[in-house]
Structure formats: structure tokens, C-alpha cells
């Protein structure tokens, strides 16, 4: 049996890098330090694998060679007028770099899952900026921790113990030295361990954020309550914010996906920016998939924009709402799709998913998903961080190198290698 230390967990945006894995006969037999989500990924990644490339011929899937699958993919992509290339939050930066070159070459649209989760966060930042930091600043310094519209105990189980409330830093060493506040529409598991829980009326984040900002800047709120929260409580929270030494506001989809979307984010950012007049305050989005942050970064340095980039004019063009895949599909404009490490059929609105399933789809993925089932071509790939190396970015932008700890099944190669084969065929090399 062999033990590998300091393995990075490629499940959620926490990208915990202290996992210990025991391997026997190329099998993961034991995992230490991971949370239940990470553990289940390490132990179950091998279930529901696709082991052979396949092509849909008439109605049936037929197993084919990798080369045949690549050829078919190239045929579909080169015949398309307006193809979309989508996914990327569950694969390496290296794979995405090749994906972007493919999109540029064929004049398609490249988009990542940001478009359906934290897109409003990015638009909020583009509008007014943000005061942020790496998670270690929070661990070392934060005496006030606020989770807004996110429930890390369920979605990012080790976030509190590694980076925030329960972590031990240089200046702040214990839970007692930190105040934890949860703002949510219901009493979540995280709310149960908070010092202050503020239950907010659904869909009224913007109002509460605006009221808080007003209070922080010494305004007197006239109403008795805002967003279902009594004014005394708002003033109390504003006071906590102004008088802390280092505050951190972390928000999730509860804020990005409720009505108001990027306006909510702007309100939250503006509040945090204002707080820097009085103390030190940062804001961080709770990014879900392990490398969605990397996907934004790579797309941004190559094209100038973090997602939803259209190459149909021969140069990068970005206009969320127009060049985001959900909108392109809804308008029925795309005529082929390359999906990498993602399952849009499950997470797009049902109408869009139906439209997507009507066009030829090529999917590259390690395992079966509703998207692979409706695809024309399916090419299985290896798991980044388990069966192959790759770079990924933690939710706060800290880049980490994911390791290869076991061999992939026979004949299975990485997303990056598959995409390079496609690219080179498309170029006619």
C-alpha cells in the first residue's frame, strides 16, 4: 500500500490540499481529511464510468475507436455555423486553453458554467470592482464572518474549519475570538452554529443590503423593519461591521440567483467598499465547482473576458445576455455543441435543455450524465486530480496543481489530450 500526502481535492471550490490517500493496486482504498463530499468523490469516482468512445448511429450508440470519435467530432464542429463550446468548471486550465483555441479556430462561442451560477457576481465586479482577499487573510485576521445566502456546511463543508470561523490563524486563534453571522431565508445548518442569525424575507436581499449600507454610513432608517428584519437588528449588525477589526462577507447563490441578481452583488460590494472607510472588510463569492475560478481566469487572460466569449467575428466579443449559452440556445441559434466536463441538460432551464438536445452534441466526460445520453458523440476522459495532473484555482484565486494518484482505465486519456487531438485535426495538421 502506498500513501500520498497533500493531495488536492477536486470537488468543490475549497480545493482542500491536505488530503491523504492510500492506494493499493491502483485503487484508492482509504482517504483522510476529506469531508463527506470529497470522500465520496475519491471513493466513488470510478462508478458509472464510460469506458469506450461512442457515436450515435441511427438511434443506437455504437462503440468506436478514439480516432473515429475524434473524426466525427471534427466533422460536426467544422460543419457547424455557430457552435457552442461549454463546460470547463470541472477540468483543468490546460484543457480549457485548448478549448479556447478550438472555439477561436471554428468561430464558435466559448462559455463556462459561470454563465448559470456566479455570472451576476462577475458583472457586479465589472461594474464597481470589489475588496477581496485570499482565504488565509480571513483565517489569520477576521473577527467578523458573515455568510449571506450560502450554507457552507452543506455545499463547502470544510470552508469554516480550514478558512474561517473554526480555523486557527496567526492573529485570531479560536472560534471565541470571532463573531459569525448568517443571513438567509431559512435557518440552515450553518445558521445553527452562528452567533447571529438574520432571517430575511425571500427576494429582498437588495433592500437589506441597501439599508445596512445606509446604517453603516450613519443614516437613520425611518421604517420599523426592512426585508422582514427589525431595524434594531440592522443597526446592530451595522455596528458589528463598523467596529470589527477585519470583516469578511461571503455570499452564495442565494444572493446571485434571487431577483436583482447583479444588482444584489453590486449592493453587497458597495457595502463592503464603504466599510473600508472605517475598518478592513472583504467580500468573497462561494464558488461551487472546483475549477470554475480557473475557467474565468484562463478565459480572461486569453480573450479579455471571463466567460461567454463569441469568436464568430474573428475576435473575442462579450455581451452577457447575448453571448451566454443559455440565451444562444433559447434563441435557437447554435447548430452544434462541444460539452466538456459538464451536464447542461440537467442544469439548464427545461426549455433550453430540450432545444439543446435537438442539435448534434459532442460530450467529453468521465462518466454518464443526462447530457451524454442525448449526445451524438461521447468521448470518455480521465479525472483531473485523480487520474491526471492539471492546474485549478481555488474560489479565492489561489492556483494549485492537482496530482495524478492512480492510472486511468485502459485507453482513457485526459480532456486536454482529447482536445489537442481535436484541435490538431481541425487545423489539418
Amino acid at each position, binding site marked *: 500500500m502506498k500513501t500520498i500526502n497533500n493531495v488536492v481535492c477536486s470537488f468543490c471550490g475549497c480545493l482542500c490540499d*491536505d488530503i491523504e490517500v492510500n492506494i493499493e493496486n491502483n485503487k484508492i482504498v482509504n482517504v483522510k481529511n476529506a469531508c463527506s463530499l470529497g470522500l465520496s468523490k475519491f471513493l466513488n469516482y470510478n462508478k458509472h464510468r464510460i469506458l469506450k468512445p461512442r457515436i450515435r448511429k441511427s438511434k443506437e450508440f455504437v462503440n468506436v475507436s478514439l480516432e473515429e470519435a475524434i473524426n466525427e467530432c471534427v466533422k460536426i464542429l467544422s460543419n457547424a455555423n455557430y457552435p457552442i463550446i461549454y463546460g470547463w468548471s470541472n477540468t483543468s486550465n490546460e484543457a480549457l486553453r485548448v478549448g479556447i483555441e478550438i472555439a477561436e*479556430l471554428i468561430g464558435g462561442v466559448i462559455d463556462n458554467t459561470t454563465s448559470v451560477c456566479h455570472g451576476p457576481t462577475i458583472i457586479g465586479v465589472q461594474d464597481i470592482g470589489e475588496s477581496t482577499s485570499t482565504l488565509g487573510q480571513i483565517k489569520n485576521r477576521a473577527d467578523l464572518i458573515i455568510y449571506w445566502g450560502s450554507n457552507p456546511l452543506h455545499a463547502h463543508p470544510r470552508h469554516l474549519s480550514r478558512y474561517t470561523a473554526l480555523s486557527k490563524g*496567526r492573529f485570531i486563534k479560536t472560534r471565541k475570538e470571532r463573531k459569525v453571522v448568517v443571513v438567509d431565508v431559512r435557518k440552515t445548518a450553518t445558521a445553527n452554529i452562528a452567533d447571529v442569525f438574520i432571517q430575511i424575507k425571500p427576494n429582498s436581499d437588495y433592500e437589506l443590503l441597501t439599508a445596512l449600507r445606509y446604517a453603516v454610513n450613519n443614516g437613520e432608517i425611518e421604517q420599523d423593519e426592512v426585508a422582514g428584519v427589525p431595524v434594531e437588528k440592522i443597526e446592530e449588525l451595522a455596528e458589528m461591521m463598523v467596529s470589527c477589526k477585519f470583516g469578511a462577507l461571503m455570499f452564495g447563490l442565494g444572493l446571485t440567483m434571487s431577483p436583482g441578481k447583479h444588482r444584489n452583488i453590486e449592493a453587497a460590494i458597495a457595502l463592503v467598499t464603504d466599510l473600508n472607510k472605517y475598518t478592513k472588510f472583504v467580500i468573497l463569492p462561494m464558488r461551487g465547482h472546483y475549477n470554475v475560478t480557473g475557467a474565468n481566469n484562463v478565459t480572461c487572460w486569453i480573450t*479579455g473576458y471571463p466567460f461567454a466569449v463569441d469568436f464568430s467575428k474573428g*475576435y473575442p466579443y462579450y455581451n452577457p445576455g447575448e453571448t451566454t449559452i443559455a440565451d444562444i440556445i433559447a434563441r435557437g441559434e447554435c447548430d452544434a455543441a462541444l460539452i466538456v466536463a459538464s451536464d447542461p441538460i440537467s442544469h439548464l432551464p427545461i426549455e433550453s435543455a430540450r432545444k439543446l438536445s435537438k442539435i448534434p452534441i459532442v460530450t467529453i466526460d468521465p462518466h454518464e450524465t443526462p447530457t451524454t445520453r442525448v449526445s451524438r458523440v461521447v468521448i470518455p476522459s480521465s479525472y483531473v486530480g485523480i487520474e491526471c495532473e492539471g492546474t485549478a484555482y481555488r474560489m479565492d*484565486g489561489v*492556483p*494549485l496543481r492537482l496530482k495524478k494518484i492512480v492510472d486511468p482505465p485502459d485507453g482513457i486519456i485526459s480532456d486536454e489530450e482529447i482536445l489537442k487531438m481535436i484541435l490538431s485535426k481541425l487545423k489539418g495538421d
Partner: protein
Amino acid sequence: MKILIKNGYVYDPLNKIDGEIMDIAIENGKIVESISGEVIEIDAKNMIVMPGGVDLHSHIAGSKVNSGRLLRPEDHYKDIEKKTNIRRSGVGHTIPSTYTTGYRYSEMGYTTVMEAATPPLKTRHTHEELNDIPMIDKGCLTVLDNNWIVLDYLSKNELEKCAAYIGWILNAVKGYGIKIVNPGGVELWGWGKNVKTIDDQVPPFNITPREIIRGLCKINKMLNLPHTIHLHTNNLGTPGNYRTLIESMKCVSDLSNGSIILHVTHVQFCGYKGYSWITLSSGAEEIAKFVNENKYVTLDLGQIVFGDATTMTADGPFQYILYSLSKNKWINSDVEAETSAGIVPYRFKKKNYVNAIQWSIGLEIALLIKDPWRVFLTTDHPNAGLFTSYPKLIAWLMSKKAREKILEKVNKRAKSKMILPSLEREYTFYEIAIVTRAGTARALGLKNKGHLGIGADADVAIYDVNPKEINPSKEYKKVRKAFRKAAYTIKDGKIVCKNGEIAENIFGKTYWVNVDIPKDLLVSTISEVKGKFEEYYTVKMENYAIHENELLKSAPLKINSNL
């Protein structure tokens, strides 16, 4: 590929060649004595031949640069690059995408660029972007002055261990040198505070900026690094800060035995006299006097160019001041146990009193410092201006008339306070070659760059301007045009640009220093810091290190330390 560049006017200051007509022979990516056989001949008659440009301070890659790109979609819309058979597409303007960055440098005849500041924790990101910048050789300077483990060691005066740790970091993150950014002030910014003088205490480290600068200067020598410490001073962008600059330069004076031991970067931003923005004036005369008298310092300008810029530095508190003044969008991004970063879009306006004074300071310093080997041309891209404005700067340095053209349009009150209108000096082509390539290559310690001697890297720029016929003072527009688009750029012995157009898409090397540290010292230091590292950081020490194979073309410089 063999190339013979024939009959050009060669400017090669490191070899003391000042506009002589010479042939330059290239074989296997190097300058050689002579070549025969099948040769590509370039007729450089009536043209200038120089070593490829070397930029020692520019922000082109890494998390701060990319946050700037993300922040400013409005910046990209108006400046696009289409894909061609040779080049990748991209966007430009103040913060170009990676491919566009490489192409635009190459089009101007630049062949080497140093990214000016990267926090170790995020340097993997910097290298990923450098991997995607074509055409040029590159490297990155590592921000180390507000690093907790470094501060802990410095405050205990354990210099040897500190040197070993810094050597380890440079090896681990593939960095090129020691960058200092507002020493002590950026650590305090972790609490929203800053320092005001180089003798302020930085709690809880029990250390002052002066001690940090001195400590790192000593360590730089102990490690025998090719470049000196690279200092962004305290109080950047604050009226009266020329005093801080002079204090900071003075504070290491006893550490030099005649050699150059300090580089102060974007000196324009620390050349302010006066007590407020209203009374702002230029500290150029005092600064130039000091530098003329003290040979151990080099500077680069950080010259203002009127128009759009995106300010971005690791100096978080400075960026906050700029945000408070401008009310433009603001990004702040602190990095645990290391540093910070701030970004604010900015537009420099001729009619603005402060901006006009800032513009004059850079040029005054460049014209008042006598030795061009110690003052280099930069805009601190994209802070004071864009690297694509270098041809404008060259024209300003070479032509009083070009400066007067601008002076006619700047804020009147500012003009009345400037000494710039009285400065007659005009740079020669030889001096331009020093401040854009020979001097910068020498300052970086890149021995095969910045000259055209036998064995040098075959990085060459050819500009279509006849130095014997033109009068740059009058015909500065022709000079500007020639430097904007090189007639030829040759990189590693390949013709990569022709008539200012990309002819071949190539990838350059990434330089980093591979410092040899005595094994015992290294092992004992690492085992000592390991526990602390895991307390301060949120990643494991093993995962902090970058493997050489993560760099597209790794070019380590083997350094024998004096440890």
C-alpha cells in the same frame, strides 16, 4: 536559420558601438562572427540596428493583471485584434490579453519583458499567463518584503536563514528577483492602515521599512542575485514623497562598495514635492542631484502618458487613496502572509494640474540624470501609461520640440511651475539604446541580452530611420513612427516581425534564478519554517512550489550564492 543583417547603422552601447555601419551575423539563435552557406540577407542600409528591447518593469501577467482585465470590459471593446493565419486573436488597450501583449511588444522590437510584481502564493498563475504570452522572453519579480516569514526573520536579524528561505522561495516559485512594495505599509494594510515614514514601526513585527529595505539589500548580495533589489517606495503617490524616496535611497548607502545595489522603480510616482495636491510640484532636481552623486542606484521612470491607464500595484493602501480621490471602480485583493494588490482605472489629462506636473516629473528626471545607464524608460505599464506608448517617450526624450508640443496644451499653472521648458537636453540614438535595452539588460543581469556581441542571443530590432540624415529634434514624428513598428524584429535568430507585422508566432523562455544554497542551511531553515508556514498559509508548503515542467520554456539561471 542563418541571417546576415547588412549595412545597418549599429547601436550597441554595451560594446561601445555608436552608429557604425556593420554587418551582424546570426546562426543558431546567437550572434556569431561570420556565416557562410545559405543565408537570409536583410538589407538594413539606412536603417538602425539595435539589440532587441528589454523592459525591466511592466505588468503583463498574473492575478492582479488579470483582475484588471476582468474589471474593464469597456477597455477592450474599442481595441480588438482579429485572428489571422499566424496570430491568435485578442483584445488590447490598457490591459491587453496575453497574446496581444506579446505581439505588440514584438512589433516595437522588444524581445524581453520582466513582469514587475508577483506574490509567491499566486505565482503559478503568473507563469500560466507568461506561458500564453508569445514572442518575448520573460520572467517575474517576486514580492517578498511583506512576507511574514521574511519579516519574522528580519526582525530577529537572522539574515542567513532569511536568505536561505528567500532562495528557497525563488527556486520554488521560479522567480527572478526580490521585489519590495511599500515595505511594512502593505502588511499594515491588512488592517486597513499604512506607514508614513521609513522609520515607522510595523507591529507586531517590531521592524521598520528602513530595516526591511536594508535587510533585503544585504540578502540580495548574500544570494548573489543577478538583479538588485527592486524597490517601490513607501508613500507612493503622496505629495512630499520625494523625501521618502531620497531617505530610502540613502538608507542603503553604506552597503555599496561602489557597485549598484538598488533599483528604484517608477520614480515619477515618488517624485512629488509640496504639501498637498494643490501645492504639488516636482522633486526632480533633488532626486537627480542625489542620483548623479550616488552611483549605487538605478531608476526607471514610470513616465505619465496622457490618456487611459489602469493603475495596478501591490501597494493596496496607495490604490485605496487613488480610489478615494477618483471614485473610479476599485479592486483590492490581499494575499495571505505576503502582500496585497489594488486596481483603479485612471485617465491622465493634460488640463489637470496634478497630471501635468506628474508628466513633467518623469521627463525632468530623465533629462537631469546625466548617466543614461542608471535611468530607464518605462511607463510602469499600465499604471502611468501603456507600453505601446514607448515610441512617444522616445520622441519626448530626443526632441525638445516634441515636449513643447505637449507643453502648449497642458495646464497653465502647472507649466508655470515646471523646469521642463528650460531643459535643452535631447537624447541621442545611442542613449535611447541604453535606456531601452542595454542598460535594462545590464541592470537585470541578463548577460546575453541587450547587446550584439559574439555569443549574445540573436534578439535584434531594426528600425527604418536613417540616423545620419534625420534630425530627431525636428523630425521627431519620423522617429516615433519608426519605433512604433520595427522594420524587423529578430528573436532567437528568427525573423518574427516584418514591417511591424507578426511574421511568425514563437514562444520565448521564462528566466528564473536557481540559487544554490548550502544543503544543511536549507534543510534546517525549511524544517524550522514548516510549522509556521502551515499556520500562516492555507496551502501546504509542498503545493506552494511550482514544478519546472509547469513552465513552457524554463530557463533557470544557475546562481552560486555567497552563503
